[in-house]
């Protein structure tokens, strides 16, 4: 790291101030509020609140519906990240081979990223709504009893697909850039060395893409944890029977719908800890296996 010495004593603080202010207002303040709320309990009429120690946490962690929500989140996040990254990689490798119209093809694939989560959710809801969805109709006509409003697994599939679809563009961009950064001579050397098709991909291309893949893994996990609220809210509302209630959705539901602020705050503190731990884990263990060129 390079050390920079400013001749002016105040200037450096002024320069970092905007970032610090943003972080304080939008992270440290709400986070400290959440920490404070998580050890308090409101009375039913919201007139006073009292300190209850870790009672909220023990209540949350022994709550079966919370553990269910944890399970739902793990399934949802892992499926979303895998599906969106897998498809994006597939499309990126295909785009890498396109010689003509590459820009056009890429532009088309980037569009979904510009769609707001709630809108994306509505889009998929309309297409797969059992009552009026076109695709739902096709599925039913072919003998598949599709009903995301009653079947929890169907609902899960629907939000995973919707959430993954929105993230594919983003992943695609990074994978295309990553593929283009691989020197052409390496691919040619592999071709001469007798590695073809899938073998060349898994032994040469994929390992060289690892920095990109790792970065996307972190981003996609955080995305699936937090940024998919809009999709879940518009498509399933956490239902049916809490089958798609992720941790973030439960925080919202318990806090703003059920007005159990203490429990909701405790959940958000736990959620924060989970994401910090997960990211730390990824950097500690996964990144070790990543080769930076």
């Amino acid at each position: 790291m390079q050390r920079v010495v400013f001749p002016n004593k105040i200037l450096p603080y002024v320069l970092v101030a905007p970032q610090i202010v943003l972080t304080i207002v939008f992270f440290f303040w709400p986070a400290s509020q959440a920490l404070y709320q998580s050890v308090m309990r409101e009375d039913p009429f919201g007139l006073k609140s009292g300190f209850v120690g870790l009672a909220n946490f023990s209540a949350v962690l022994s709550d079966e519906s919370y553990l269910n929500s944890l399970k739902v989140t793990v399934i949802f996040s892992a499926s979303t990240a895998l599906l969106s990254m897998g498809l994006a990689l597939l499309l990126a490798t295909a785009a890498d081979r396109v010689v003509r119209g590459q820009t056009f093809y890429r532009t088309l694939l980037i569009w979904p990223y510009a769609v707001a989560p709630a809108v994306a959710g509505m889009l998929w809801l309309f297409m797969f709504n059992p009552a009026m969805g076109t695709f739902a109709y096709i599925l039913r006509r072919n003998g598949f009893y599709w009903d995301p409003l009653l079947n929890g697994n169907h609902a899960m599939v629907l939000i995973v697909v919707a959430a993954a679809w929105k993230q594919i563009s983003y992943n695609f961009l990074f994978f295309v850039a990553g593929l283009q950064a691989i020197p052409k001579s390496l691919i040619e050397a592999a071709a001469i060395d007798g590695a073809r098709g899938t073998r060349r991909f898994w032994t040469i291309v994929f390992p060289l893409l690892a920095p990109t893949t790792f970065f996307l893994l972190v981003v996609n996990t955080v995305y699936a944890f937090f940024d998919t609220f809009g999709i879940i809210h518009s498509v399933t509302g956490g239902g049916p029977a809490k089958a798609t209630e992720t941790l973030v959705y439960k925080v919202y539901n318990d806090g703003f719908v059920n007005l159990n602020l203490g429990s909701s705050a405790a959940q958000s503190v736990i959620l924060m800890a989970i994401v910090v731990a997960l990211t730390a884990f990824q950097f500690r263990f996964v990144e070790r296996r990543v080769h930076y060129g």
Partner: protein
Amino acid sequence: MATITLKDVQKTYGGNVDAIRGVSLAIADGEFIVLVGPSGCGKSTLLRMIAGLESITSGDIAIGDRVVNTLEPSERDIAMVFQNYALYPHMTVRQNLAYGLKNRNTPKDEIERRIAKAAKSLEIEAFLERKPRQLSGGQRQRVAMGRAIVREPVAFLFDEPLSNLDAKLRVQMRVEIKQLQRTLGTTSVYVTHDQLEAMTLADRLVVLNGGRIEQVGTPIELYERPATSFVATFIGSPSMNLLEIKGGSSDWSAPPAFVNQPGTASLGIRPEDIGLADGSTDNNHFRARVRVGAVELVGAESYVHGSLASGAPLVFRVAGRSRIGIDDEVEVFARPESLHGFDAAGRRL
């Protein structure tokens, strides 16, 4: 081991850009061929066509007695050393060497045996377990060579493999490549733009210009009897002087047999064939008066850059340190047997 035969090979990009315009060449088994030429002459394209990395627009390429026009690079049984080495950065040196063999389902003990042998001959045993980025340029170069050797292919293809090395290392690796090729006896095609590298490595040189072969021959043939004025000026450093012959010239004289030959358009003389005149006159010698513009001392010899009265430049060599100063006027001469005549199209007479 195999011969490589090119028959009227052509390459056209996008329908109208001709990169290779009909190249025919027969490379003997075990021969070291160097393709040399200025940038954009098509030498790398030609090499890549032999490797199978570029398609052939028309013509035939055969390795051994097998026409390989449409075969995949891996099916041609050749190995290539790239300019940037193209080592797999995520693999250790050992894995880099083993990769091509593994893909061909070579038995494990055979792979081990070949790697050990190649590592020993290239002196890279000490860093077999390292990754390419932990190696210096010269070491990477050796690994790239090793990757080619372990495959025991029928031919080696080299695409300017030494151009990323510093001058000293380049000379050293040049000698090693030559020795290695001689020991292994593998047919080799080597691309370079460096004429010194070309001269020292080649059994036979192929000079390319604008997608065509200018001349094929041993280095000494090309040096002594260049077929065209292009080859004459490309081979040799500093390059050959070319003087235009326009009717009678006042500022220099040449043997009448030369100048009066019909069709002669230019006269070529190598700087090392020109000497300072000692006062005696011989009508059969090339003679000229030169005004000295600059003197380059390169160690054992000096190159004098001067100009004739007409302004035409002339470079000549003097042994040792020269007493000639800038703006001096000196008389120079060259023997008739060292003169090269070319016609208007640049062909040797």
